[in-house]
């Protein structure tokens, strides 16, 4: 699904990723853990194509295609979903309008039929209900005045509506209380745990991994993967800290 080789990237001229290599096979959930400043969010943004995040060497293949050659909106249409650590507020634009236009833009790009207003609202309401979010919130401007937990639930509702092939979730667990963490974890499993999908979970903490069991865990430190292992690696990290394990 996703094959990253020797990826180097800079932000404002400063090297952040320094030869990162990682493969996420179809059907698997991989977790990337690491200390602050290791390059976790940079990796997410580079994969999403954020302007200002410059790839200086290496390659990224997504289902055999050169991901880095695609514009951000083309990556979304190709089936990549980037869950934001800090979902952005957009005043004056309702979530319903935003997600509907985004979804239909993806569908047009894929040569699929656009969803009608009624079809979309049915889908959006069902996804909101599945994530434990009041569907009335979808009428409010995108993320505006949402609590941290509401923003993350809203990201998962969007993911459920988009049904991507690959989700890259950047600290989707940060700022969540236990109930929201459970709901978000269940959402990830329901939407993305499938033989034809894959997930890259980026997180500081092991606690989300209690709800979304990873197939592999990688430690990101100094802009590269320094260790990889099974789910038990997350527990080891939680117990002993990054300094011990990543060194």
């Amino acid at each position, binding site marked *: 699904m996703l094959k990253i080789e020797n990826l180097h990237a800079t932000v404002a001229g400063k090297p952040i990723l320094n030869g990162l290599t990682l493969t996420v096979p179809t059907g698997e959930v991989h977790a990337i853990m690491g200390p602050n400043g290791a390059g976790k969010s940079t990796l997410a943004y580079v994969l999403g194509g954020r*302007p200002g995040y410059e790839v200086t060497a290496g390659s990224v293949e997504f289902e055999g295609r050169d991901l880095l050659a695609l*514009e951000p909106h083309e990556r*979304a249409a190709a089936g990549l979903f980037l869950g934001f650590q800090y979902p*952005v507020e957009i*005043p004056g634009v309702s979530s319903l309008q*935003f997600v509907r*236009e*985004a979804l239909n833009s993806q569908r047009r790009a894929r040569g699929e039929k656009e969803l009608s207003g009624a079809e979309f609202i049915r889908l959006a309401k069902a996804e909101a209900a599945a994530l434990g979010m009041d569907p009335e919130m979808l009428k409010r401007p995108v993320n505006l005045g949402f609590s941290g937990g509401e923003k993350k639930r809203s990201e998962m509702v969007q993911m459920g509506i988009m049904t991507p092939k690959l989700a890259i979730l950047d600290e989707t667990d940060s700022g969540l209380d236990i109930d929201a963490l459970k709901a978000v974890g269940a959402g990830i499993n329901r939407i993305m745990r499938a033989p034809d999908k894959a997930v890259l979970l980026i997180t500081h903490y092991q606690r989300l991994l209690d709800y979304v069991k990873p197939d592999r865990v990688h430690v990101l430190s100094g802009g590269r993967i320094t260790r990889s292992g099974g789910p038990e690696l997350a527990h080891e990290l939680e117990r002993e800290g990054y300094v011990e394990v990543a060194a």
Partner: protein
Amino acid sequence: MTALPTRKLEAFRYADIDALASVWSELARPERIEIAAQQNVQQIWLPGADPVQVRRVEIALEAGARANIFALNTATIYGRIEIDVTLADGAHFGLDAANIGGGSATLEIVTTVRHIGVAATSNQTVRSVLGGKAVGSYLGKVAVARDAQQTDSVQSVKAMLLDRGATANCKPELEIYADDVKCAHGATVGELDPQQLFYAAARGLDPASARALLLEGFVAGLWSEIEGDDQGIAEAARAALKAVA
């Protein structure tokens, strides 16, 4: 007809005088709207097809009268909306207006709101979206007479510049002779937020659609207080935004 104004006049300092000259001889005296006590008037001003469009209106509101104007200014060469309002006791004037243009358009909204009675209110919201080398201006004077106590006036002016060559002029102006008044005013000039643009792109919106959607959000709310049929102003604004996005 009086002589063609020059840019030395404050109310014309950003005007396209050449364009104004082309219509000046046909410009009648300002249209006058008189609203009797306790009457309520709503008008929706849609742009016409002419490249130069100048509208001059005087509005006199008697005690307790209300006027709400919704205006879209999108002329391709020169669009000027000039309003001179006089408010008696307890009257209300509302203006929700947008300048939307690109190319080398000059768009301006010039208002004088005269509070002469007590406890009158005025609320002006103006949004400008400017691309290319367009110039968009709001010159808004609120004049509060000595006896116009308990005046409550608001001016909210925001402009969005889409290209380096575009210009916005925002000038709320207050002239207050009474002492018990509230006159709020705010003016900002900005550009589209790169974080919002990336978020929209990451969800699949192509750059032009993302810009159009964010701009729609920027002018959202201007038309929400319209009572009844909006006569297509929201759709016309959306089309104008798509054209500049």
